[in-house]
């Protein structure tokens, strides 16, 4: 069936993209200069390296007729899990970054642009 092949191929591409994102995130976490930029790399790993391949796994399951009806369960669980990581990943990264910034737990240098400080200056805080 054509659509099954399309699902499998798109799924495999997504898994490959995920693998690339994970490697990029690992390099970023090791090489980036401070906590906040490393957190960005970690989020690349969480969204690109976990959500995208999870969606890919769901598509691969949909394109595997040998799984029978179970492929719909696998795909459903994959998409739900992907969606939940997508919601949780950004909220977790935001909470970590905000807490670190407020508590001044990590050095901010080198800093290119600090929108929060600018906003506080505008408000006169």
């Amino acid at each position, binding site marked *: 069936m054509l659509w099954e092949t399309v699902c499998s191929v798109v799924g495999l591409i997504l898994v490959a993209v995920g693998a690339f994102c994970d490697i990029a995130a690992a390099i970023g976490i090791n090489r980036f200069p401070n906590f906040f930029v490393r957190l960005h790399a970690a989020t690349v790993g969480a969204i690109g390296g976990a959500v995208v391949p999870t969606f890919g796994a769901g598509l691969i399951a949909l394109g595997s007729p040998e799984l029978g009806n179970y492929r719909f369960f696998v795909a459903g669980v994959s998409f739900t899990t992907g969606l*939940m990581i997508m*919601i*949780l990943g*950004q*909220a977790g990264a*935001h*909470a970590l970054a*905000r807490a670190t910034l407020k508590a001044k737990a990590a050095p901010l240098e080198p800093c290119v642009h600090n929108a929060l400080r600018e906003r506080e200056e505008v408000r006169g805080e």
Partner: protein
Amino acid sequence: MKVTDLVVAASIVALALLLSYAMFLGGIGPVPVRSELRTLALNYILLTYNPVKVVYSALAPEGVTAIVWDYRGLDTYFETAVMFLAIISVVALTHGCKVRIGLGKGGMSLIVKTTTRVLMPLIVLAGISITMHGWLTPGGGFQGGATIAVATVLALVTYSIDTLAKHGIRKRVLLAMRSTGLIGIALTAVALLIIGLAIGVNAYIFQNQKRIGSPLAFPAYFSGTPTGGSLLFYNLFEAFAVSAGLSLAIIVTSLREKEVKETLRGEGVE
């Protein structure tokens, strides 16, 4: 990278390699290799769901739940009671400490709060699902209850202890829920015994299906789906008790240190 880091890394690798080499040589005792199952394991596998030999069966497809709540139910009951005692002890230690509310705005940023609001119902739903499939698939009351308690932890961290108190999740309510769950488990354990006494038939404590010398049984099917008989009730009550108990433990451990110390020194007021 410091030299000490290198030395630590190298020694960890060396330890792993040495241990695996010793294991390969049989240096840390013989590794048992069995081609066949032991009789006990085989009996569990053959009898957990066996409509032909009902007197030996729990009629639940999930072996672990069947063993935990049917074959060795009494043991599990006391395990649950031990956990209940531990929670009671924590509550007793902090007796008199009131959860003071309205001390500040509290809570994390709007982004985290919104995410939590979206996720909390999903977590509770997942917990209920794990509980309600406990006798069909891996999972059960404890796992489902612990999952539900995660929702409380999330709410506590993202919103603050004040919000929990405002929504009625207080120490006393949770303790009552926990006790209700435990009483429910105890009642399920003796339900058939009470019925047996009432109608003058033999019955056993922790009886699930028909046993030798006792014709009483919990309903094993609901519209064609196996319910595991009493396992359904045990799982439900266990989830109830565990979710309330763990939430209570989390709330007690998140009491403000200053207030707890004041109360323990006898300076606080109830």
